[in-house]
């Protein structure tokens, strides 16, 4: 899928400076060619669902919905792509599949979609144990 050339156009100079290492991992993910097939096969999910979720979270969705690059998300995706995803990584995968479905296919507002999806797949809540 062709990616917008100005993927990080929404970031200011501070954000570009401090988030560059994470942006690099996003580029690495974007360049991966077999991850979608591997994840689809491993989790027995339709390829197009994985493709849409990847593009939403790491590709065109980044500029369109002004996402910040997230090191936890990118690390999870790299593990998923190596068939080494954890239970929490799997929640992220389902979170992004469901959210991208609501936003891209159903045209729902991203914030509202996140709210709905978070109730079923609370990835960010599971990521860190309570302090």
């Amino acid at each position: 899928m062709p990616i917008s050339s100005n993927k990080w156009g929404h970031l200011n100079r501070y954000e570009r400076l401090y988030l560059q290492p994470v942006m690099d991992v996003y580029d690495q993910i974007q360049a991966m060619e077999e991850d979608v097939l591997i994840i689809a096969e491993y989790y027995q999910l339709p390829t197009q669902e994985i493709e849409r979720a990847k593009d939403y979270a790491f590709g065109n969705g980044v500029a369109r919905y002004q996402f910040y690059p997230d090191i936890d998300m990118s690390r999870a995706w790299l593990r998923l792509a190596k068939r080494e995803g954890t239970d929490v990584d799997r929640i992220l995968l389902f979170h992004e599949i469901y959210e991208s479905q609501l936003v891209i296919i159903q045209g729902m507002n991203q914030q509202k979609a996140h709210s709905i999806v978070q109730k079923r797949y609370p990835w960010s809540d599971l990521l860190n144990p309570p302090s």
Partner: protein
Amino acid sequence: MINPIFEKKFLEALDLCNSLSEFACQPSDRPCQAIHLFCEIGAEPQSLLELNALYSEQILIAKKSIEKYARIVDNWKTGNCPFGVKDHCNIVNFFLSLNTQDFYFFRGDNFTPELICEFLQDWKGIDLFPLLSKKAQLVTH
């Protein structure tokens, strides 16, 4: 003696943190507003330390509110601070952990206290690096 203007700003920032319960799973610019207030106080870093010590009990409550909010939101762009709202919560939590040094971050492990200090120095021109040292001492008056 604590500067009463700084104390007022500090308490205002704590109120902003406590009010986050009104924004469950919704973007809020209140963490960003709190950062601006803490940065104003940060012009005198020792004041931040003293206020952290003086209001330690209130800080525990505020930190719980921040954590509850930060755990469920997306890292949306809000307010006029760089980065997203989850990052803002990280930075607010950083300000409220200067006395205890029990820094806890809601997003990523790349946003370290040292990196936050570097960013605040770059963005606001305040130097909080001395407060990161375990030797940072609370000066009593």
